[in-house]
């Protein structure tokens, strides 16, 4: 079953055709990678999924419902979470609070007026958050203020914030960019483990081919705003169109 379907999406910025008739379909439970040279329109495409940008034409449907025109929090509430490329966390709050916020948003919906409920009573959400933080390796930093963490830890926290919501679809924007080899491998393991155990569908934008080929079930190659190939990893490596896209821009 296709969980996310993108049909004929176009987006222009002034004279630049950022996205040109993009078609994409992601099947449920799969890890779908979008690769492509710099400036191919990967981030623009992702921003169209989460309500940051509105495409000029085309449709983006999730579980049969259009995502276009929905507000960011509504898109999240139907089950699409996003992990940002540059960590956007709540820097004044503790690590645990950072993860409990999305957990509560997932459980309580977009708004819940519970000003006299004690935080201490939220043991379920607390356990759930700690669970995810253990998976991701931050369990010993629960009470640390987020602003004082290292860059790598901030990225992991960002990922924990997406995972704790048990999303139906998780969008990851270059989850390993700037990480050391060891951290990268660790992240691959975490994502694999979570993909298998919780059955979360993922769309990953990534530069690192090592990450892409160890994780992805399917790969779409984006070049100059359009999808040139969509196939399983084994068929991508030898594909002449892909080689041309990468080598062509390299020249």
């Amino acid at each position, binding site marked *: 079953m296709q969980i996310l379907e993108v049909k004929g999406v176009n987006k222009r910025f002034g004279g630049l055709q950022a996205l040109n008739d993009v078609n994409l379909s992601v099947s449920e439970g799969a890890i779908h990678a979008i690769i492509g040279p710099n400036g191919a329109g990967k981030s623009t495409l992702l921003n169209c999924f989460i309500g940051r940008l509105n495409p000029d034409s085309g449709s983006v449907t999730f579980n049969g419902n259009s995502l276009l025109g929905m507000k960011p929090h509504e898109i999240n509430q139907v089950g699409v979470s996003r992990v940002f490329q540059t960590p956007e966390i709540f*820097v004044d709050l503790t690590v645990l609070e950072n993860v409990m916020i999305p957990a509560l948003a997932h459980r309580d919906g977009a708004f819940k007026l519970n000003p006299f409920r004690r935080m201490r009573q939220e043991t379920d959400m607390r356990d759930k958050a700690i669970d995810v933080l253990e998976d991701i390796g931050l369990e010993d930093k629960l009470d640390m203020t987020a602003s004082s963490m290292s860059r790598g830890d901030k990225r992991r926290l960002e990922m924990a914030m997406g995972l704790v919501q048990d999303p139906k679809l998780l969008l990851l924007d270059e989850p390993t960019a700037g990480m050391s080899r060891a951290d990268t491998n660790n992240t691959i393991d975490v994502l694999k483990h979570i993909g298998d155990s919780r059955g979360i569908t993922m769309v990953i934008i990534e530069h690192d081919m090592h990450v892409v080929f160890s994780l992805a079930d399917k790969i779409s190659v984006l070049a100059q705003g359009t999808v040139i190939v969509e196939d399983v990893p084994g068929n991508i490596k030898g594909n002449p169109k892909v080689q041309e896209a990468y080598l062509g821009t390299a020249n």
Partner: protein
Amino acid sequence: MNNSKYSDAALLLFFIIMVVAGPFILAPFGGSYPDLLQKFAIFGIFAIGFNILFGLTGYLSFGHAVFLGVGSYGAVWMFKLLSYNVLPALVMAVVVAGFFSVVIGYISLRRSGIYFSILTLAFAQMMFNVAYSVATPITNGETGLQIYNDDPQWLQGADSPLTTNLFGLKMNEVFWRPEFFGFEAQFNVGYYFCAFFLVIAFYLALRITRSPFGMMLRAIKTNQNRLSFTGVSTRPYMLAAFVISGMYAGLAGGLWACMDPLAGAERMQWTASGEVVLMTILGGAGTMLGPVLGAGFIKYFEAIFSKINDQVLHSWFAFMPDGMENFMVAIVHPFVGKGWHLTLGLLFMMIVIFLPGGLIGGLTSLGRVLTGRGRKSKG
């Protein structure tokens, strides 16, 4: 987080003790008389409420005095129509303030940042004009709303007192005047009535801050955009915070009218809104004790400074040679008496420039320096 249960209980206990012992504590400072004590409690409530909005979410409202003002009007109308009993007046004050804060908040919160501040400022000025001249039949305009002999007072019993009271307990009654280290301490019914609400207000604010709701508000202050990508609709949270703090202001306004059954438009002028901002940042925005401390500080010095005249100044500097004495009096003169606002403005600037964390923030960092270690939580 694990020990917050005990530290919060300790904080609350400390707060209750300070409030109950208020008349004793202030006696040596010459501040133990009903009017000032009542102002402490009333403005403490006002500042605690303002802090729920500004301290937690970072949204700076410049029109919060409006809710205090309409609360006062609502309360006085209850006195005029029903009786001198304070309970209906307080309920009315909170309801009216809640209504106005829903309307004003709904519109102002369509924008954020400085737009929000300016919108609330515009509303404050508009409501002042409304109270001062437009809605004269309701507000009695320039004169201010007060109780007249021919007011209906339908529920006023034949033998109940002709002053604000709680089922016969008069608000202006001083029931104990002990001598305390040579100073008189005045124990007043009105103060303890206000103090009761101050403690409740403090307790509720503590609960709100420690709730999931409060955490969402703090997240709004840190990164509102990210919060919406996390699936939270931020506007209803903001509106709820705005209305809660508006109702706090209404309660304060109602209590003020209960202590002194009179309501005037000047209570809602935007400079009055500026005063509660100052109280909050002076004590320390976002802290629990800060706003109350700031409110007490400002009201105390307002009372003290306004009383100082040249005669008092001369007696202060009498030990100096004449020329020197006159010189010192001339220097200090502009800052005291009618010059209190000048001092207030300077204080405002000093706090923002040198002490952005307010008194509580300053004390915390002082404590950190003295003990030589970092502390995680503050007041």
